C-alpha cells in the first residue's frame, strides 16, 4: 500500500490584547523593611506562567535579584483590577501594569537613597539589589538599607502603583474602520506541517516580540501545537454537526490529543520587539494553536489530493473524500472565471431561496 506524504505551509497574524482595547490591568508593589518586594496584581495564572513572568519583570524593573520578589496573593481585596487572563494580554498588559508599579517604587528607592548618599537621584542606578552612583560605585547603599531607612527614619512605605490601559477603539459600523489601533501589538507566525495523513512534524516560527522567559514560551508553543492538532484532526463536540447526536461525554468518546499523537515539533522564536510592551514583549498564548489546522489541511491535500475544509479531518472524512474523488466528484464547479468549491455545504445550498441572508457574489 502506498504511503502518501504531503507538506503544507501557512502564515498567520494575531493581536495582543482585547480587540478594540479598553481592557485595563492594574498592579501595586511594596517593599518590606528588608527590601524584599511584594507584588499584587489581579492576573490569574492558568498554567502559562504569568506569576513567573510578572516577577521577572518586577525584578529587572527595580533592579533586585529575582528571588527577592514574591507574588503569592491573588484575591480581589488586595489585588487591583485585571480584566482577565485571555486575549493574550497577560504578559503585555498585565506585565506593563507590574512594570509601571515597579518603576514608581524604584523612583522612591532612588529618592531615599539619594538623601542617604547625598547624591542626585538622577545619578543613581540599581543593580542586583544595590544602589550606586554612576561613575562613583563606591558611593552605594543596599536596597535593604534603603527600605529600612524608609521604614524607621523617614516614615515612608515604599510602594508604587501602575495601570495599563489602551483606550477603546470605536469602529464605524458601516465600514468597520477604526481611528485608533485596536490592539496593543501584532504578532506573526508560520507553520510547516508534514503529514503521512498522520501528522509527522510541525515546524513553527513565532514572533513574540521579546521572550521574557524562553522556556515558558516553548511551553506555550508545544501546548498550542497539540491543541491545534486536536482542532485539526481529532476533536469535535458535535461529530455530526449540526446535529447534536453522538456527543462524547468521556475521554474515550471525545478524542483529546494524547502523548502518542505527538508529532516532531520544532519551534523558532523570533524577537521583533513591540514599541510599548514590557521589555518589547508581544504575546504567544493564543496564536500558538492557530497555524496548525490550515497547515495540516494543506498538507493532507498535498499528500492525497483532497481538500477537507470541515474540521476535524477524521479518517472517515478522508475516506469519503477519496471515494468522491474516485467517483469523479469533489472537483470545483467552474462557471466562466469562477471556480466554486464546496457548493453543496454553502449557505445558499442549504438555506431556502427566500432566506433573509444569502451569499451574493454579484458584481
Amino acid at each position: 500500500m502506498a504511503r502518501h506524504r504531503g507538506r503544507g505551509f501557512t502564515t498567520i497574524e494575531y493581536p495582543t490584547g482585547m480587540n478594540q482595547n479598553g481592557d485595563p490591568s492594574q498592579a501595586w508593589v511594596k517593599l518590606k523593611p528588608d527590601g524584599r518586594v511584594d507584588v499584587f496584581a489581579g492576573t490569574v495564572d492558568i498554567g502559562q506562567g504569568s506569576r513567573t513572568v510578572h516577577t521577572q519583570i518586577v525584578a529587572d524593573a527595580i533592579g533586585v535579584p529575582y528571588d527577592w520578589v514574591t507574588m503569592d496573593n491573588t484575591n480581589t481585596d488586595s489585588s487591583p483590577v485585571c480584566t482577565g487572563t485571555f486575549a493574550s494580554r497577560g504578559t503585555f498588559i498585565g506585565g506593563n501594569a507590574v512594570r509601571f508599579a515597579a518603576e514608581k517604587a524604584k523612583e522612591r528607592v532612588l529618592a531615599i537613597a539619594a538623601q542617604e548618599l547625598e547624591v542626585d537621584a538622577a545619578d543613581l542606578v540599581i543593580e542586583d539589589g544595590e544602589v550606586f552612583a554612576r561613575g562613583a560605585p563606591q558611593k552605594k547603599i543596599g536596597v535593604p538599607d534603603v527600605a529600612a531607612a524608609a521604614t524607621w527614619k523617614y516614615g515612608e512605605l515604599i510602594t508604587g502603583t501602575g495601570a495599563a490601559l489602551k483606550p477603546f477603539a470605536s469602529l464605524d459600523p458601516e465600514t468597520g474602520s477604526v481611528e485608533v489601533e485596536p490592539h496593543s501589538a501584532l504578532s506573526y507566525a508560520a507553520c510547516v506541517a508534514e503529514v503521512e495523513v498522520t501528522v509527522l512534524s510541525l515546524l513553527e516560527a513565532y514572533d513574540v516580540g521579546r521572550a521574557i522567559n524562553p522556556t515558558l514560551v516553548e511551553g506555550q508553543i508545544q501546548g498550542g501545537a497539540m491543541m491545534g492538532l486536536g482542532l485539526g484532526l481529532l476533536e469535535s463536540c458535535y461529530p455530526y454537526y449540526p446535529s447534536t447526536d453522538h456527543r462524547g461525554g468521556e475521554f474515550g468518546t471525545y478524542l483529546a490529543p494524547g502523548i502518542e499523537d505527538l508529532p516532531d515539533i520544532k519551534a523558532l522564536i523570533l524577537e521583533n520587539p513591540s514599541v510599548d510592551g514590557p521589555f518589547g514583549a508581544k504575546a504567544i498564548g493564543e496564536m500558538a494553536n492557530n497555524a496548525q489546522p490550515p497547515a495540516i489541511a494543506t498538507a493532507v491535500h498535498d499528500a492525497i489530493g483532497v481538500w477537507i475544509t470541515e474540521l476535524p479531518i477524521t479518517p472517515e472524512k478522508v475516506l469519503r473524500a477519496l471515494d468522491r474523488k474516485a467517483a469523479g466528484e469533489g472537483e470545483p464547479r467552474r462557471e466562466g472565471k469562477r471556480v466554486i468549491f464546496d457548493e453543496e455545504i454553502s449557505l445558499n445550498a442549504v438555506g431556502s431561496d427566500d432566506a433573509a441572508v444569502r451569499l451574493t457574489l454579484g458584481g
Partner: protein
Amino acid sequence: MKLTLNGVERDVESPPLTSLLAVLREELGILSPKAGCQQGGCGSCTVLVDGEARRACLIPLASVDGAEITTVEGLGSPDDLGRVQAAFNDAYAAQCGYCTSGMLMAAEGLLRTNPSPTREDIQHTLGGHVCRCTGYVKIIDAVELAAGGVA
C-alpha cells in the same frame, strides 16, 4: 480498614465502596491526586498501589484494604525533592500542574520496573494520561532526565 500510606499505617473509616481517590482527598488529607474525570480517563488521580501505577478514582477502598499506597507526598518534599519531582521541575514539565501528580506517579511506577526506558516506553506508559497545557514534550524530557538521560 487499613492502608499503609506513604510508609505509615493508617486506619480508614470510609465506607468500603468509597473510591480510593475520595478516601485520600476527603478522609486522609492527601490532596495531590486530582479528581480530573472520575472516569479513569485522564490519569490525574494515579497513585501507586503496592508499587503499581493505578487510577485511584476507579478503585473501591475494599479492594485495597491493607495495601501500600504511595502518593506524590511520599516521593519527597520542597526541601528534598524525589528524582522524578526534581526532573519535572527542572524540565518545566508542569504548566497548570493539574495533571502533574498523575504523571509523576506513572513515571515513578515506570522507573521502578524499567530504569532505562526509551522515549517510546515513556510515551506508551503515559499514553492514557491527558495533559492539555504542555503538549507533552517536556513531560517526556522530564522522565528521561529522571532516568538519568539527557533532557
